């Protein structure tokens, strides 16, 4: 301000002195005053502008300086941060992971789905649902319990409205030395498909051999121990003892173990594009008064009869999976081929027609089945698959008293061929179409058609191989 007024006064004095040289009138004087006033104003404006510019220049200079310093720092470092977000702590921060699978199927079948595959009436036929049905909806909750234990539960929501406990187990992976311990209720580690949950199946239903020999899946209450060899090749052996809850066991309630399983898996990669796993398993149990309903007999009793079996059941299985993906990039395209074979030998006592004649005598049979399937993801999100199923009901050795009642030789091998196409709009949703030519029941060939949705909400856990 001081500078400004000095300058304007000096200018005014100069001007006034220059005009003093000649005689001037009042009017002139007035005009000069006005001019001086204008000049003063204009200079004041100019000076104010200059001051503003100076300030701005100073500020931007500082900015440039600090930007340069920051750039220097940027070159070295992407702003590190201390490794803790641990500020948050509230009760629900430790809530377990919750995942909900919503699944449903529309099934169109020409034959009554309650009829079991010919020669395989000893278990409860899992069958299919006709029309719209709530398929494989399930609720899963899991979390680490402490540094050693992890717990998981899967509740299956039954279409009829009930809830059943599919899995409820505790796992300890911290034993070291390749040991893995699991106890509670779990899917047995036998075969390849047995451990997979329904939402991870590649088809809308399980292969016939799983439906007929394991009632879709063998769930067990018991203890499982696995050991992984310290080798570059995957070599795992495992054993289970359990209650014998699921078929072919009869859920017996007594001390000791009701069923035992042994399994071994070997697997590896071949280059980066191929991977495989092969396995063998053995399952043994003893069934007591295991009931089977609607069993056809030699007398052609309408709707069949109810039988009961007590005896030993021993099943061996082989499984093989091979996967191929160009460059090992499964997000893009891949091929997955898998096949499994199971062979079951049962021997004991069979009571024919428990509700009527009730004749008990010896019974032994060896049954087997296999499937082979291929799934091809031909472009991201789209997969197509083909599966062939086949069962052999075997020829039973029936004791003389029942020889005229029980069918020993069905002279028929159930089979089925299925084709599916599925589309996954995202990792969390899948829509599937499946067609099947079902020839699993003698003289009851069926064309089946399924539409299925599988949606995954909440936590999305990792899938096994």
């Amino acid at each position, binding site marked *: 301000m001081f500078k400004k007024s000095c300058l304007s006064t000096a200018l005014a004095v100069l001007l006034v002195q220059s005009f003093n040289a000649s005689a001037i009138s009042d009017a002139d004087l007035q005009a000069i005053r006005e001019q001086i006033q204008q000049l003063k104003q204009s200079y004041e404006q100019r000076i104010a502008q200059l001051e503003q510019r100076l300030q701005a220049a100073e500020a931007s200079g500082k900015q440039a300086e600090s930007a340069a310093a920051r*750039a220097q720092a*940027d*070159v*070295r*470092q*992407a*702003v*590190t*941060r201390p*490794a803790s977000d641990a500020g948050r702590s509230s009760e629900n921060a430790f809530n377990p992971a919750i995942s909900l699978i919503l699944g449903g199927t529309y099934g169109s079948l020409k034959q009554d789905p309650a009829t079991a595959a010919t020669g395989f009436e000893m278990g409860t036929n899992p069958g299919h649902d006709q029309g719209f049905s709530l398929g494989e909806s399930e609720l899963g909750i899991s979390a680490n319990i402490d*540094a050693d234990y*992890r717990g998981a539960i899967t509740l299956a929501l039954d279409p009829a409205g009930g809830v059943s406990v599919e899995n409820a187990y505790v*796992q300890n*992976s*911290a*034993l*070291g*030395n*390749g040991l*893995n311990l699991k106890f509670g209720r779990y899917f047995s580690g036998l075969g390849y498909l047995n451990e997979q949950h329904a939402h991870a199946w590649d088809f809308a239903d399980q292969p016939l051999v799983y439906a007929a020999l394991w009632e879709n899946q063998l769930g067990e209450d018991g203890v499982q121990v*696995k*050991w*992984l*060899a*310290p*080798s*570059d*090749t*995957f*070599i*795992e052996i495992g054993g289970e003892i359990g209650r014998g809850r699921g078929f072919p066991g009869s859920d017996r309630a007594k001390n000791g173990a009701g069923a035992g399983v042994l399994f071994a*898996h*070997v*697997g*590896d*990669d071949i280059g*980066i594009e191929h*991977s*495989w*796993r092969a396995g063998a398993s053995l399952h043994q149990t003893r069934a007591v008064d295991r009931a089977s309903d609607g069993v056809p007999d030699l007398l052609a009793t309408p709707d069949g009869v109810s039988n009961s079996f007590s005896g030993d059941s021993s099943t061996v299985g082989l499984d093989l999976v091979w*996967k191929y993906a160009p*460059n*090992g*990039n*499964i*997000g*893009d395209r891949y091929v997955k081929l898998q096949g499994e074979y199971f062979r079951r030998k049962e021997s004991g006592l069979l009571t024919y027609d428990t509700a009527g004649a009730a004749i008990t005598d010896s019974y032994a049979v060896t049954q087997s089945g296999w499937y082979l399937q291929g799934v091809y993801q031909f472009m*991201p*999100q789209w997969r197509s698959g083909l599966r062939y199923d086949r069962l052999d009901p075997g020829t039973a050795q029936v004791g003389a008293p029942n020889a005229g009642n029980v069918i020993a030789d069905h002279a028929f091998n159930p089979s089925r061929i299925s084709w599916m196409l599925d589309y996954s*709009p*995202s*990792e*969390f949703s899948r829509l599937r179409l499946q067609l099947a030519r079902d020839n699993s029941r003698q003289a009851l060939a069926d064309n089946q058609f399924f539409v299925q949705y599988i949606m995954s*909400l909440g936590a*999305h*856990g*990792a*899938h*096994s*191989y």
Partner: protein
Amino acid sequence: MKKFLYVLLLLPLGGNAQAALNVFACEPEWAALTQQLAGDQASIYTATGALQDPHRVEARPSLIAKARRADLVVCTGAELETAWLPVVLRESGNRAVQPGGSGYFEAAQWVRMLEVPAKLDRAEGDVHALGNPHIQTDARNFLPIADALAKRLMQLDPANAAHYRQRLADFDRQWSAALEKWARQAAPLRGVPVIVQHNGFPYLSNWLGLKKVATLEPKPGMEPSATYLGRVLNELRQQPARMVLRAAYQNARPSEWIAERARIPAVMLPYTVGGTSQAGDLYALFDDTIQRLLAGLK
């Protein structure tokens, strides 16, 4: 005799018995960094290839077998490997490498995460709660990660601590020099508008000053549809981009579709070590990345 038997037993199992540490690296960049820091003191197995989508890997038997014998697992973390690593570690029966243990190292813990979502909703696609996990595209991130990783190596293998400290110092010096070189080389890239195929480059953009104007995936992890690509193409008329970026593991089609119609180059970046034949090690990874970006400008 007993000794001989042990040796016999170990022979087929040992693989690389003279190396002090068995390291299981989830992605090639961490294998390369471990290699820089440990030299021949570590025998390193890389779980995924540069042409694999690291989000979508399977818990293959071979991975479980390798994790069984690992002393140290080095991964990105931030949920990048959430689809497979938890199963691999659980099934490995290896106590040392379980999350929380000293044998489990997550690189993402040591850098500032970008794009941490304020709201978690799957309607937004495959978002990661802890932020965008593709941290390896910003070369500056390797300094703090190397520092933390070297400390972990010293902790696990104290006998060779001096070796790791020396190698860390060497790496620090060389990498800092390289960072200055890259910053100079990449100067013309500052402010350049780009399209990305997958939202996998926020760290690269943050580092080099690229400006992302569009993403070809409608939501993270979702394949772009033709309709959506058409819409992106339309938007490009208002807000043009200079090039379209994709990682080596991604399908070339969407970027090429856009590139052809928008008349801009489609630039494939190695994304990690081995993504291109030029990106043979960590230094070459960023040399090649910047060269490819600069070539896209022309």
